[in-house]
């Protein structure tokens, strides 16, 4: 069944199921999906009432029919969904279409919760397959507040069925979902992934949804759905405050905004649908304006490309020994830190490249994407030539990403463009092919045109193609700088495409590289470069971008420029604190100074002496102050992080020399199964790492078996376990029991809010640590 007619006609959905069932006696806590097995008559009568009132689509009673919820009731997804669809189809008897209704799973996905994207996908796949088998006419994914969960559900429906699929999410009055997703990010992401219609349901009445619906309509070419609540519920009576007539009238501004698919959510009933048909019947869809801008995003950060946007280049192992070491050691915290620094320096998009000999890119790229997205809100550009790695990365990416890159070779285009299309990404096209890089601007533009034709043939819209005209080193091929600039001009102004350049290549092999790179950057932006790939930590580059945005008129009233430079007294700001020692810098938590002084100290001392002679004594002094109540937790942690900065200097120094890292022995740390509060564990980890211990952090909500496995495989001698709530203490006890059954059991230290010394010894732990400081004492006793 197709929905082509949706473009020029209105479509009417049904109203609430849940609140109607409650009106007919279902208690709020019960599982309404079980009614499919126990009271088909009741459901059938509700469907019939909706169809009689004018619904053209009824949602089958399958909103919460997932195996997480049904397992507790002892029923299978297949059983419940096939019953539900069959009841709805019998009631509809061809008068209306029947939708498989897919609601949220009821558990939060990573990084907030512990359900992985892959687990969510599998749960949705089971639902989608059951719905298709039972004969649903379409699938509706609704009431989503997490774009990541909506993506998992949409992929599961699209990859396992042929059903058309609608996706609606719930927004708050501030224009965002609970997880912070904007309407623009939702629209761009879901359209890219191939939804057939998108919109809003639940949360608010129609009047309050209008501004959000407008934003949605500007950001998608798809039909837009409004299925609002009957206003807001009264906290005393529980009644929604909008009657059928007011509700229907309030939908008219939604029609004006561009909505073509209408229905109701909580608090509505067949009467509302009848009124809604009365008011909307005979009305025509209102012409819409789509904003065809280039766009990438994460849920919380929409990035519309309407000026110069900086792509940070630092997440890349090329020529960086420390980064290579981090990749080989699986040290994702280091990689995250590189990403965070670029966000703080003002990058708009981050390039992510993890290709290095000895690294399995297909496994590593999705892991790094998840890690970065757990703490950085910028859109990412996945940088690889390996199609399997790109697909794995795009699959778990939350939002609309970019891919770097394809080129003019037909085989490359054939391999990569279908993946770009499937996941709705943007893509960078390099102007080279089998014949190499053309030496003239015209030659490069010709390749750009070929890539554009190929992209369009795969259904990738023009705005999603970004062209890289390639920077060549000016000291080797001096005449090429001008050719690159000419090509950028033509691609931007004649082809109308976004343009990318890796800028810093220009200055290899010459002195004062920064000056040359900055000049080339400015000229390229003037020629039409919109997406410079640069190191945002280089102040000169970001200064040039900031100044350019003023001169191009993009930075309205020079606001960003003023914010960047007002009060800047940089020539005098760097007053040298000559009498500041390394130990003082650590104790006072002065990260940058500590790193600088460590660099100086390394000129006269070796790495080990630095650790033993400065770092640890300084941390000890802070630790003693903490024990005596003179230093408080934030200061203890700031000192630990200054120590971390020193460690980073030491690690880089060792990596450059190719030596082995300074590490004092390894331990495993984890928050036990069922416990999702992990800041306490993270605090302990920060402090231990800065005493030089190699801390293998297994994360939170960790099953005992995973801890046992890590201990066995890595021959770990010390394990730290944390639990915050009384409900998770049994999991701690079980973990200890399993660890002690190992042939050589590790030493176990436990901590966390509810753990007491007495309980620790009852459970069989070797040590109790009340805080990070005591954990260090234990580590010293056990690991030295």
């Amino acid at each position, binding site marked *: 069944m197709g929905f082509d007619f949706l473009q020029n006609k209105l479509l009417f959905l049904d109203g609430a199921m849940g609140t109607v069932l409650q009106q007919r006696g279902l208690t709020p806590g019960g599982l309404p999906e079980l009614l499919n097995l126990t009271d088909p008559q009741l459901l059938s009568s509700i469907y019939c009432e909706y169809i009689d009132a004018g619904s053209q689509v009824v949602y089958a009673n399958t909103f919460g029919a997932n195996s997480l919820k049904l397992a507790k009731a002892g029923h299978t997804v297949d059983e419940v969904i096939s019953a539900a669809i069959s009841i709805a189809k019998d009631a509809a008897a061809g008068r209306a279409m029947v939708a498989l209704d897919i609601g949220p799973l009821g558990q939060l996905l990573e990084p*907030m919760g512990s359900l992985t994207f892959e687990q969510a996908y599998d749960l949705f796949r089971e639902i989608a397959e059951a719905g298709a088998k039972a004969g649903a006419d379409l699938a509706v994914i609704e009431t989503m507040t997490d774009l990541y969960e909506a993506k998992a559900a949409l992929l599961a429906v699209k990859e396992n069925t042929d059903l058309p699929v609608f996706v609606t999410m719930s927004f708050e009055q501030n224009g965002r979902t*609970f997880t912070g997703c904007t309407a623009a990010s939702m629209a761009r992401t879901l359209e890219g992934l191939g939804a057939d219609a998108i919109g809003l349901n*639940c949360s608010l009445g129609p009047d309050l949804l209008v501004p959000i619906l407008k934003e949605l309509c500007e950001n998608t070419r798809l039909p837009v759905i409004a299925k609002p609540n009957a206003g807001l519920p009264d906290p005393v009576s529980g009644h929604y405050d909008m009657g059928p007539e007011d509700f229907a009238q309030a939908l008219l501004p939604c029609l004006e905004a561009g909505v073509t698919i209408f229905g109701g959510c909580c608090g509505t009933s067949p009467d509302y649908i009848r009124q809604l048909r009365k008011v909307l019947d005979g009305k025509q869809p209102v012409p819409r304006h789509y904003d065809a801008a280039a766009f990438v995003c994460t849920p919380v950060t929409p990035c519309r490309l309407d000026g110069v946007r900086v792509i940070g280049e630092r997440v890349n192992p090329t020529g960086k020994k420390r980064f290579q070491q981090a990749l080989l050691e699986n040290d994702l915290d280091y990689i995250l830190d590189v990403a965070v620094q670029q966000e703080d320096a003002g990058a708009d998009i981050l390039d992510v490249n993890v290709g290095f000999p000895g690294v399995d890119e297909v496994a590593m790229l999705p892991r790094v994407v998840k890690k970065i997205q757990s703490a950085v809100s910028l859109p990412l550009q996945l940088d690889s030539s390996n199609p399997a790695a790109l697909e794995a990365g795009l699959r778990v990416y939350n939002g609309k990403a970019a891919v770097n890159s394809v080129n003019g070779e037909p085989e490359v285009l054939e391999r990569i463009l279908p993946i770009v299309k499937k996941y709705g990404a943007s893509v960078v096209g390099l102007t080279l092919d089998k014949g190499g890089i053309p030496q003239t601007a015209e030659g490069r533009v010709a390749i750009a045109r070929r890539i554009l034709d190929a992209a369009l043939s795969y259904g990738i819209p023009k705005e999603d193609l970004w062209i890289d005209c390639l920077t060549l080193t000016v000291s080797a091929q001096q005449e090429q700088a001008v050719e690159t600039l000419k090509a950028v001009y033509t691609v931007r102004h004649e082809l109308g495409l976004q343009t990318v350049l890796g800028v810093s290549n220009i200055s290899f092999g010459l002195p004062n590289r920064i000056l040359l790179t900055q000049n080339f950057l400015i000229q390229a932006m003037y020629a039409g470069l919109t997406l410079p790939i640069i190191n945002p930590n280089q102040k000169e580059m970001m200064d040039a971008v900031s100044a350019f945005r003023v001169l191009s008129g993009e930075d309205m009233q020079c606001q960003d420029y003023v914010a960047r430079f007002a009060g800047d007294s940089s020539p005098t700001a760097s007053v040298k604190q000559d009498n500041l020692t390394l130990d003082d810098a650590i104790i006072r938590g002065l990260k940058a100074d500590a790193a600088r002084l460590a660099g100086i100290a390394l000129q006269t001392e070796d790495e080990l002496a630095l650790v033993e002679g400065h770092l640890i004594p300084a941390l000890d002094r802070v630790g003693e102050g903490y024990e005596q109540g003179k230093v408080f937790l934030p*200061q*203890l942690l700031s000192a630990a992080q200054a120590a971390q900065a020193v460690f980073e200097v030491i690690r880089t120094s060792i990596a450059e020399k190719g030596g082995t890292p300074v590490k004092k022995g390894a331990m495993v740390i984890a928050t036990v199964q069922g416990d999702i509060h992990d*800041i306490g564990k993270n605090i302990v980890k920060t402090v231990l790492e800065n005493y030089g211990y190699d801390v293998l952090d297994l994360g939170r909500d960790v099953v005992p078996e995973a801890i046992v496995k890590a201990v066995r495989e890595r021959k770990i001698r010390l394990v730290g376990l944390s639990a915050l709530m009384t409900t998770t203490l049994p999991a701690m006890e079980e973990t200890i029991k399993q660890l002690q059954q190992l042939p050589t059991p590790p030493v176990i230290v436990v901590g966390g*809010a509810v753990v*007491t010394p007495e309980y620790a010894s009852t459970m069989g732990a070797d040590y109790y640590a*009340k805080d990070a400081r005591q954990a260090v004492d234990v580590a010293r006793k056990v690991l030295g």
Partner: protein
Amino acid sequence: MKADLNEILRYLGAEQASEELRLKVAAVSDRLTEAIQPRFTYKVCPLLLENGQLSIPMAEITLKSRTAKRMLAQCDQVILLACTLGAAFETMLRAEQARDMGNAAILNACGSALVEAGCDAAEQELKARFPGRFLTDRFSPGYGDLPLSLQPAICSTLDVQRRLGIYLTDSCLMIPSKSVTALIGLSDTPQMARIRGCAYCSMQKTCTLHKGGKHCGI
């Protein structure tokens, strides 16, 4: 809504903080309140006392706890309240942990205090809504002998997943972590203050939750 600075410092175990640290904490708190405001929802439910058995029929809850019986002795209605800083706080805290653990610890304490401020605001709204009626102090599952196992019933009665984006794990923990559920009695007679926050709690000196910058939600 704004968190109380002294309360934040108490959560950090840093009542004796230097002026420098106080300013730092105040700055983090300002940044938090600028970015995130607590959201809450509540439902007013009839309270039933039958044969010495106290229950909230609307939520299918039977209250066996002595604390609940003591708190609600003179009440005919009980308000179920949920308040949260939402997922945005979790994101902010994760990002801060990746940047600076010291600031993250401060932010964590600010979050605890801000969600309390949200509960206070909800109480103010309730007082205005029911003139002539009196509210008991609020108390939460996990306090005294009021069991955490009440959480699923409270959460589903308030429909917190849909209304506030609060999820409950199998171990009855709420995500986002800065979320509170509470009971507040409604009575025709003035109610004495029995509990209110860590400052008035008998466990204040020994509570490890309190020492770690966290709190139990009352």
